[in-house]
């Protein structure tokens, strides 16, 4: 995707008035949204239109396409390499069992590829509207800002889930086509039936979604600080990369527990027997803490800033 594409309006239904459910949902009379029934309906419609926009944007579809291709590439590479010797790690085990490709795909993509896509969507969420000049139309009602932010964040979370699901399903399909399927060997050396392996893949997907949603909150907060969407996206990606570098330096090991990136890898706890819930639980706590802190930063910024564009 190009810079130009991010900055220029790419939305099919421009937000400058117009008709349709999106437009009516976004210009309620101030105060009405607080009323339980109508408010909830407005919120749902706003969210539905937001999600529809997200999954209709060519850029986002292209990113989901890349996410679907990477597991296939890994699978083909292992298939080609396994003629000789694929080694013994989790990647090497794919050759013996296609279901393992799901876990290997997350191990490969969780550090940078998945966060990148989330940073693009979440970083663009508010700054993109500001750059297009559509943000002020969304904010005609003062009370609407909190609601708008909520909808934006839920939308980011939906995208996180979609991204993880795309990776998992693509890996599953590629694995089943390229390799034999059967009972899966876990990291602990125990073997579980294929059905339970699918269940564990589900746990991995949900955990990865939570980890990415925490990054989404950070990117959303950055997005409210600027009117240049590319700046917000770049800043979020830089944060991820810096965290990864910090995780790798032993001299600053003390900061590891508070970095998002050091908890993303904890999904491997789902691949042990017994399943170690404690480390994943701690990871979820860190994710929730990030979402709370950066969500509130985004709220403070968005509800107090002057919208000029």
């Amino acid at each position, binding site marked *: 995707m190009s810079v130009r594409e991010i900055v220029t309006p790419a939305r099919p239904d421009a937000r400058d008035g117009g008709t349709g459910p999106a437009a009516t949902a976004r210009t309620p009379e101030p105060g009405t949204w607080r009323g339980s029934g109508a408010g909830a309906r407005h919120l749902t419609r706003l969210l539905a239109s937001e999600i529809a926009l997200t999954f209709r944007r060519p850029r986002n579809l292209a990113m989901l396409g890349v996410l679907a291709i990477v597991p296939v590439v890994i699978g083909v590479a292992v298939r080609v390499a396994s003629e000789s010797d694929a*080694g*013994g790690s989790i990647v090497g085990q794919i050759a013996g069992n296609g279901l393992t490709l799901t876990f290997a795909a997350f191990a490969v993509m969780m550090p940078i590829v998945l966060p990148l896509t989330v940073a693009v969507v979440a970083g663009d969420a508010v700054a993109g509207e500001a750059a297009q000049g559509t943000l002020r139309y969304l904010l005609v009602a003062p009370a609407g800002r909190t609601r708008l932010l909520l909808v934006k964040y839920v939308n980011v979370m939906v995208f996180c889930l979609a991204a993880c699901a795309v990776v998992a399903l693509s890996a599953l399909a590629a694995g089943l086509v390229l390799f034999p399927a059967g009972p899966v060997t876990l*990291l*602990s050396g125990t*073997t579980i039936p294929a059905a339970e392996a699918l269940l564990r893949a589900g746990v991995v997907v949900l955990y990865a979604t939570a980890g990415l949603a925490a990054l989404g909150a950070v990117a959303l907060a950055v997005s409210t600080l600027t009117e240049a969407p590319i700046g917000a996206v770049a800043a979020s990606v830089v944060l991820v990369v810096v965290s990864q570098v910090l995780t790798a330096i*032993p001299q600053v090991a003390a900061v590891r527990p508070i970095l998002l990136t050091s908890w993303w890898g904890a999904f491997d706890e789902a691949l042990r027997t017994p399943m170690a819930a404690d480390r994943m639980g701690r990871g979820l706590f860190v994710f929730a803490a990030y979402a709370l802190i950066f969500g509130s930063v985004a709220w403070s910024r968005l*509800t*107090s800033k002057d919208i000029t564009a």
Partner: protein
Amino acid sequence: MSKRARAVRWGVPVAAVAVVAAAVGTGPVIAAVRSDPSLPERTAEQLLADVARTWQNGRMPQMSGTIVETASLGLPALPGLTTPPGHAGASPVSLLSGSHQLKIWYAGEDRFRLMLPGEMSETDLIANGGTVWLWDSAANTATRLTTPEGHDHAAHTPFPTRSGLASPYATPDRLARQVLEAAGADTAISVGDAVTVAGRAAYQIVLTPKPADSLIKDIRVALDGEKLMPLRVQVYAKGAAEPVFEVGFESLSFTAPAPENFTFTPPPGAKVEQEAVSPPAGHRPREAAHAHDHDHDDHGRVVGSGWDSVLVTALPDLSGAKRDEDRHGGVDLAALLDGLEKAATPVSGEWGSGRLLRTKVVSILITDDGRLLAGAVTPQALYRAAGAKG
């Protein structure tokens, strides 16, 4: 919007940070509030006698838990000390820096499982009856360990067994007195404040070295108040508020572990090997005072006794040592030694000249005539030892 209203809004993220900090801080605070659990008073002698009685009369209790080892010896960042990705905690030398986790399931002397989790990998030691398996997921290798013929299997388990303490004349009380007398010459043994370890009230035995040359302030061993099992060992250096070495339970439950933990069948596709060695014994809380020794027991010689001991050894033959270490987890000894020399400062005196490396708890002296001296002592003690030989 007025300035004041904005300030109020920015108070919300501040409050969010406070809430998170409070949630993170609650654990330690609660632990601190009840840091003095009430246990019946016991003197050091009574406590040691009770420990000996417990070990003599029964086995260790069934349990499962997580052990965390943390070392901050103040070593410079040396090649080989940093953990290679995917092998967290796999190399014994890597245990000298940073923090490592170990999980344990213990159902009896010959039924236990030790698990070293790594990033997308795992190393397991599983003993079930006479069968001992070592599983390395990164190498996809299951090794069946067999004890050499003629050796009692139980003697090779990494857990204390009755055999050492059960000799007929060693009654617990007598044993406790003997230990205290033997240690009394250079160690003060006392009972410290009760502490909470892994949520359990524990006695604390404090071993304080008497020699002035020792860099170790004291060693604190926490013993479970009810089961009298060691829960934690901490080594404190002089002038450091935090322990330089700590190994202890982070969580612990005295329930019988699930039997699935002890059944291991090599998974299909894994390499299966046989090796006739005794299981490694270094993975449990033990007297940490030995952890810093560079065990070159083939050449090494110990000068002095007790806390003042100084290990004197010839610099290891790198070509041979390197090959040997590579086999045991990829430690490049030559690079390690090279890094050690680079980090050291040149020193000289009546004893000769060389390079000195000082850490919080260990001093290492590499003399120019090719000797390596190490000990948990001040550099002056090393110089004396170096001079004594020359």
